[in-house]
């Protein structure tokens, strides 16, 4: 079977992999690059556990062909923290106990950061609708929404201070 050679930027690093033409970006991240932080909960774009940011926009990596990533920028959960310094969204998820099993968490964190990058002061309703594509079965969403609102407040404060 023919394999495509793909060169792409993942979390700022240039990466190369071979993929079959029908392989998804999610499978390539997990199987070819060993980055298993992005999860497959459905494989059909319905759960958001595989959320990554592709050229600045969040997408379900299960709905992207790996070949499409040629020359593009991919940001995954593995790139959210800077070294051991957690991003405020990650820190607030921990402080608010916004995860129980933790399986949907990477997708939620990537999606939440994507929201706050675009909208530093979202309302609760905006947070809920933005995250409607990310399913969580454990928390009932309450603590997740609170964590995102908290992170937004902290980021606003950081920006003001800076």
């Amino acid at each position, binding site marked *: *079977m023919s394999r495509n050679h793909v060169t792409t930027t993942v979390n700022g690093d240039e990466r190369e992999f071979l993929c*079959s033409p029908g392989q998804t970006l999610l499978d390539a991240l*997990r199987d070819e690059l060993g*980055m*298993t*932080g*992005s*999860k*497959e*909960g*459905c*494989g*059909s774009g*319905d*759960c958001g*556990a595989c959320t990554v940011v592709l050229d600045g926009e969040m997408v379900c990596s299960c709905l992207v062909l790996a070949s499409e990533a040629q020359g593009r920028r991919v940001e*995954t*959960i*593995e790139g*959210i*923290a800077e070294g051991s310094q*957690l991003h405020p969204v*990650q820190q607030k*998820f*921990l*402080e*608010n*106990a916004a*995860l*129980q*099993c*933790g*399986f*949907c*968490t*990477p997708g939620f*964190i990537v999606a939440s950061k994507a929201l706050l990058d675009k909208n530093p002061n979202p309302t*609760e*309703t905006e*947070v*809920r*609708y933005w*995250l*409607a*594509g*990310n*399913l*969580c*079965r*454990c*928390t*009932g*969403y*309450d*603590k*997740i*929404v*609170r964590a995102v609102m908290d992170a937004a407040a902290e980021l606003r404060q950081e920006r003001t201070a800076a």
Partner: protein
Amino acid sequence: MNAPEPKDAFKVVGTRPIRPDGVEKVTGKAIFGTDYKAANMLHGAIVRSPHPHARIKSIDTSKAEAVPGVKAVITGADFPSLEDIIVRMGESSGSTVDISTNIMAKDTAYYDGHAVAAIAAVTRQAALEAARLVEVDYEILPHVIEMCDAFAADATKIKAAINTVGLGEGEQGRPNASLKFTSAKGVAAAAMANAVHVVSGHYSLKPVHQGYIEPHAAVAAWKADGKLDVWCSSQGQFDVRGLTASVLHLEIGNVRVMPLEIGGGFGGKTTIYLEPVAALLSKKSGQPVRVAMTREEVFRATGPAPGGEIDVKLGADADGKLVSAEIEFQYSSGAFGGGDAWAGVMHSVNHYAIEDYKVTGWNVLCNMPKHAAYRAPGAPQINFAVESAMNDLADKIGIDPIELRLKSAVKPGDPSMMGSKFGEIGLIECLEAAKAHPHYSAPLGKNQARGFACGTWMNYGGPSTASVSLADDGSVLVTEGNPDIGGSRASMALMAAETLGVPYEKVNVTIADTSSIGYSMVTGGSRTTYATGIAVIEAAKAVINILRERAAKMWETDVANIEWIDGSAVCTDADNAGKSFTLAQIAAKAGATGGPIAFENGVNPLQHLPGYGAHICDVEVDKETGNVSVVRYTVVQDVGRAIHPAYVEGQMQGGAVQGIGWALNEAYIYNKDGRLDNAGFLDYRIPVASDMPMIDTVMVEKPNPGHPYGVKGVGEVPIVPPLAAVGTAVSRAVGKPMRSLPISPDKVYAALNGG
């Protein structure tokens, strides 16, 4: 056991520190079921029946075997035959014949999605291609899906031989029933005849899925010495080990199960589906094999909680005190025996003191996947019927729903349905707290209405093992055998830190594989913080005793002169009075004072107490479309004592939202051919973030005297009351009883328009 310590004595119990595994989980590093990869691993794929009921005449695997890269193909014929042995499997039990048959069909496929063959190949793609080339010759048999069809006296019998329990001569006319169970007290019919107020109703529920976001996955390596290693996510590695060993006829000690992080279970991961398949493929291929389900496979072949058809009749005296309950119901159990009817009976009126009642439950087989435990298994369905009827009764009498319940609510010392006397239960406290909550008396907006319900789950204790050991710098290492499904590492660390008198941050918690610690029953039954917590606390206390002995040696005094205060050994003998060694100082000298400091402790505590919750729900109904929005929701629950309050609240909120989903949108939908029509998250509609309001929580803390820190199980209770709380709110908004779940917009619309 001593009474729990007073709350204000605690230093760390009741605080909300960051969970020990948190950073791994927010950075994507935690290894879940499908994340684990073994060296030289093959990839599996499963061939599944497209028919709900069919005899397997033959299976031709030759074309599949010819696909390049295919290393092994198995069918039901590759499984060991089994004697019918009951084995423990967490909250339910089942025969190994049923479990093995459910894992892979032998001569008959019993449901759409039933596994009939499996492939292992060098790539997932090759395995999938080979799976498509397996040729199965089916003889299609009549199928039965809906409960009313399955329970009919003239129903098509879906299995020649059904193990029946409790079916007397007169009841053999139910071809698909596997259990009839009755709990009765007094003479319910006579008491009903004397009741002043009587309400009755028929209630219906569809099967629903647990809906964990992580699909099942397992890696198995059958080693040259005949031993088996398994890596998987589950609610209990020990029960995966036991069941896998049973199905494969292996000695338990030859199977080692490594627990991976679990991406949700809610009861659905207390059993096994893939482990023996991966093991047999590994045995045949000589390589480790990973078998993972797609989401569609999860819906078609795992889960569901039973659907139910329930008749309820409640009678009360002039004052509103319940005097009789007559209840009969059927629960679907899928194509196999067992089921939740027993639990349904025992949770029907276990929250009310009633002198006369008769409750009968049936388990009924149908051509659906084998039922699996789902959070308080069997309780939400019956509670929906009973609590909806209670609200009807309140309306009929013209009394406040909480007042009505207070007249009959069980209290400590009352007899339970189980035949024992209730201990320090907290239903009345929950009802009082709900009544006092501002939500209960808040004004409602246009097209809004409020529902209330309370409910119970029995909870459990049972066997757990934990060890506590110290490193020579004073680090505390807790090792346990229960997967952390929602923050239990944090609660174990808090209890160990509290007991030892050390900071939370000093405690590290590891969840060990089945060869590295003693048996621990599944993380389920709301038992882990209670039972495994006791194992941890007692192990920590044993370590304190060792530390006291070591300190005594260091001071050359009698151990009786050593007290353990706030993490230090304090000497009380005359020579050294007031001197102290910290835990770390003693640990540093362990080599010189007797060797490593460690204690492993197996426990089997059974002083768990039932949990109770009271829920208030406000909905708004769009009268033109029938759409229902939950606009406000409050969960009140007796939690005993919250070790880590944030994760207790999380259980309350998550359980409530699962119940709201069950009430409004979730259901298995089969087409006329008996195929599951909504095997995906698009059409199996679990709640999304924008569907929900914040979920307010009130933790009532009435400590359990049977736990050093007062713990009661909290995980399951919160899914019990929402069905009736939501259903009643919608019924009131609509002005008609909504007794069939899910209460979808088209049903509401029909009710509003004379349907």
